[in-house]
């Protein structure tokens, strides 16, 4: 191989290599260069009498519609990935994370109490609901804005979406089990506190103990 080259180089002292060869040379130089290359630089590298400008025209045509294209960068030339294949250059790493406690609690309140206002959510949770939490749930398309409440200030309400129902495998928000059912299913390991049945708007909630808080 290298013997051939030397032969060619020697020959080139007398005559420029054929255009096909020149095209190959330009191709190799543009491929291997760490930066775009000017026509002058190409000429300096190629055998005497070469016409890199013409070789570039041929090469550009050759790479038309290919996965890489010959592009002009200022007064230099470079090989670049075809624009429409840019997606191949991104490796998408999907990371699965658990929803934060604040988000899941907010979501739970919305699903059980919809339509519900932010103030109501805060009242139930006992802490304020951060904008980020609501935004995250909106972004996940698990909640959306519902009708405004006909109360002073006409606050917006939140309701769960069809995506929410799909994700959690529910036909409707009504299918969410009550606390009594949860406990009966062994999902909640709550011992009712001795002798206290606090009045609650949801009867089954009353039997839940404080013990759960201490399990976390």
């Amino acid at each position, binding site marked *: 191989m290298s013997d051939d080259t030397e032969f060619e180089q020697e020959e080139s002292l007398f005559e420029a290599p054929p255009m096909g060869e020149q095209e190959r040379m330009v191709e190799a130089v543009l491929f291997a*260069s760490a930066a775009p290359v000017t026509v002058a630089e190409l000429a300096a590298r190629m055998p005497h009498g070469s016409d890199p400008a013409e070789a570039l025209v041929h090469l550009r045509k050759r790479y038309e519609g290919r996965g890489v294209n010959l592009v002009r960068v200022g007064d230099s030339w470079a090989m670049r990935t075809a624009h429409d294949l840019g997606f191949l250059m991104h490796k998408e790493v999907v990371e*699965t994370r658990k929803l934060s406690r604040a988000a899941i609690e907010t979501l739970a309140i919305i699903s059980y109490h919809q339509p519900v206002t932010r103030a109501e959510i805060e009242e139930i949770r006992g802490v304020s609901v951060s904008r980020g939490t609501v935004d995250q749930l909106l972004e996940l398309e698990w909640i959306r804005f519902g009708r405004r409440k006909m109360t002073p200030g006409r606050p917006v309400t939140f309701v769960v979406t069809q995506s929410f129902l799909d994700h959690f495998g529910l036909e409707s928000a009504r299918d969410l089990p009550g606390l009594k059912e949860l406990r009966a299913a062994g999902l909640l390991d709550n011992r009712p506190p001795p002798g206290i049945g606090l009045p609650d708007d949801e009867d089954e909630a009353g039997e839940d103990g404080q013990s759960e*808080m201490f399990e976390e």
Partner: protein
Amino acid sequence: MADDDFQEDVLSVSERMAAEALIIDVDGYEGPLDLLLTMARTQKVDLRKVSVLQLAEQYLAFVEQARHLRIELAADYLVMAAWLAFLKSRLLLPPEPGEQGPSGEDLAAHLAFQLERLQAMRDAAAKLMARDQMGRDFFARGIPEEVSRVRRVTYTATLLDLMQAYARIRTKDEFRPFVMDRDAVMTMEEALDRMRGLIGFAGDWTDIMSYIPEGWEMDPGRRRSATAANFAASLQLAKEGQVEIRQGEVFAPIQIRKKPNV
């Protein structure tokens, strides 16, 4: 000693030059096998046909000369010399009847194999390095485009998460500050306060059960709590030297009284 000095003197310049050349040469060899290979090539025959006997003699002569010139040879050169002397004797003398171990020919053949193999590897190394090499004869992409990593986070939650979260919130309503919830609990501090005040009035031994506040003895929960608190408080008072405690036997009533001298 005198002998050595004398010898030193009679060494001609050319001999000294030869001695020095030998030192340099030994430095140039990569061990006895390398030296042997070089010697074998001086036989100018195919390595397969090399005369191992001749080689052994050549090597031994070399070592002898080095010793004569008082050149320090590395231990492995001397080990090889000893082994070659052994090999030489095996090759020259007919094997004694009933002698164990490999024949001189086997040993010689293996040495020849080693030399041939070393030479072959050197040739292979030369061929390898003569190949076109990347970064010298051919090239990789000069402007590689890094694959950018796009991190997409998806959040998951299960129905169970959701329901547990809801249960957590709803049961939170029942959570009130501890003190409020403690109508059935008497703390040691409470009992201590009570007993400090009462103890002075009881002159003689008194069952600690009599210190249980009124209304607490009926509810089992309250009674248990008050008993425990009173007992703990009694121990504390005894420790402080304010009361004495006694118990007749196991499970008998525990009695206390104010320490007389206090």
